[in-house]
């Protein structure tokens, strides 16, 4: 069979969402941000909510997420995306509002906004991309950097304490587990996008996080995506995806943590 007999509109089984603009992603080759953008756009398209969706982009690599999604967008100050989303949702309760943040944004400079937005039970969808490092600023330590992991500011590896017990870089922050204990979070899950099966699961989780917002008046729907940063991890994209499996997932295991306001017993 000739390829031209297969490549016909009626045989199309997959293409990128129409809710992504024509602008090429500025992300490094193999970066998970692109995959997460893609599946968010697919979900918004499938749910048909693009005319009432307002996104909030962070400071960090995804600062220009607004260039890629064909929906209204506000760009927030570093860490303040949850406050911005709260502001929008409170004055436009019928809109669908989501935040998109990295680990430095959500779990370091914006920890206060993250926790209080979750604790108020704002009716929002929060997407948290955790790659354990600061990407945009050039690979410095993130709150979620693994113990022993080398970054520009932990060049000898993250060391929580010195040998004599004196505090040093501290420990990887389990922000998703922390917010899962708050009464305001409805749905909390941790996913990844480094294999096709995981992308499918992550998309299902994101879809649920938006459907919950559409069907309810309160409760944060929080999706962490454990992702890669091959440029700052200093390895190829393929190796980074493997490294993620071997190093990130033991510390940040995948799966639902909370559903319908109930912590999931393991």
């Amino acid at each position, binding site marked *: 069979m000739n390829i031209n007999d297969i490549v016909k509109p009626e045989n199309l089984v997959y293409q990128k969402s129409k809710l992504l603009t024509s602008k090429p992603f500025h992300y490094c080759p193999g970066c998970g941000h692109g995959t997460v953008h893609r599946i968010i756009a697919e979900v918004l398209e499938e749910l048909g909510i693009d005319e009432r969706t307002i996104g909030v982009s962070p400071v960090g690599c995804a600062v220009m997420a607004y260039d890629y999604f064909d*929906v209204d967008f506000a*760009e927030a100050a570093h860490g303040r995306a949850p406050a911005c989303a709260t502001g929008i949702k409170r004055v436009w309760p019928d809109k669908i509002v989501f935040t998109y943040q990295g680990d430095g944004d959500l779990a370091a400079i914006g920890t206060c*906004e993250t*926790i209080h937005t979750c604790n108020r039970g704002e009716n929002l969808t929060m997407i948290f991309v955790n790659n354990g490092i600061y990407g945009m600023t050039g690979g410095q330590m993130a709150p979620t950097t693994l113990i022993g992991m080398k970054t520009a500011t932990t060049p000898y590896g993250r060391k929580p304490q010195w040998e004599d017990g004196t505090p040093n870089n501290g420990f990887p922050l389990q922000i998703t587990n922390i917010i899962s204990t708050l009464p305001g979070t409805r749905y909390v899950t941790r996913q990844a996008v480094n294999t096709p099966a995981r992308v499918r699961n992550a998309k299902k989780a994101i879809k649920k996080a938006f459907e919950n917002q559409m069907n309810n008046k309160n409760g944060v729907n929080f999706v962490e995506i454990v992702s890669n940063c091959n440029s700052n991890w200093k390895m190829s994209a393929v190796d980074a995806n493997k490294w993620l499996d071997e190093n990130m997932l033991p510390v940040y295991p995948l799966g639902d943590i909370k559903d319908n306001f109930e912590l999931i017993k393991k």
Partner: protein
Amino acid sequence: MGELKLMKGNEALAEAAIRYGCDAYFGYPITPQSEVIEYLSEQNPYERTGMVVLQAESELAAINMVYAAGASGKRVMTSSSSPGICLKQEGLAYIAGAEVPCVYADVVRGGPGLGTIQPSQADYFQACKGGGNGDYHNIVLAPASVQEMADFVALGFDMAFKYRIAVCILSDGAIGQMMEKVVLPEQKARMTEEEIKAKYPWALSGRKRGTQHRVITSLDLDSAKMEEHNRHLQRKYDEITKNEIRWEEIETKDAEYVFVAYGSSARIAQKAVQLGRAEGLKVGLLRPITLWPYPTKAIDALIDKGVKGFLSVELSCGQMIEDVRLACNGRAKAEHFGRVGGIIHTPEEVLAAMKKQIIGE
């Protein structure tokens, strides 16, 4: 017509916000302006008009709620006092860059740092000369009465949406805390979704399929575009300077010496004018109502009419005096007098300062 009431300045501000049809107030308690959020919470405007009142987790969160809710075309405001306004400078710089309309009140207390909870006017620089990063201005209105605390809410929102800019109501602990009679405006309706979409096409409200999606951001990595954006902001500031300068003059017709004072200092200086006139001194008062843009042209005109000297009376170590001197441009004498640390000057010491520093005895 409006309703006559006896109220604190802070309460008048809050009530005026409800009556203007304000959509949301995001705040954080700090003395001496906590009455604003307390009054709003007590009045329960969510039931009166649907207005949202939210006590945020910090001033940072509050101003960023204002930023994004304002970016979506709603009339939103916040208030704080000096150290809290410091924290809000982050959001105010984004608001300036992204051209988001909003109103914020600063009920100024003494500084630096935690300073004192007593009245002060030491945040003139912060309000008028930046505060946040970048080349920007906010419109700054200086109320001198409880009535103006109420009136400037409507004026502030009108200007904020006309120019897509933040408007600061620069009050102080005295104006915020004192009680006076105030005529409150009639209740206005909040804008509907259709009205907002028709009137503010830039506002984030969900883009229609087939139309360009909207983005509210202060970022552009393209230097040429960022330069043009800055030029655009400066043209806007020029336009505001052309159209919006406001001031009041008292006894300046034949004045040779003029007090320049705003807010609570203006009320004290007004009494000093009376005392001076009773002594036969040709003194008057210029009260700037907009501190940015500054009434430079009013000072210029007074010099043309023969004023020989100006005394800038401020509850600070001398901040507005810089703008008075710039306006004088060497054509008239300009000096500063002020008490600080929460001490409020008396009319007698203000008049004495005029005699000593400007008139000369």
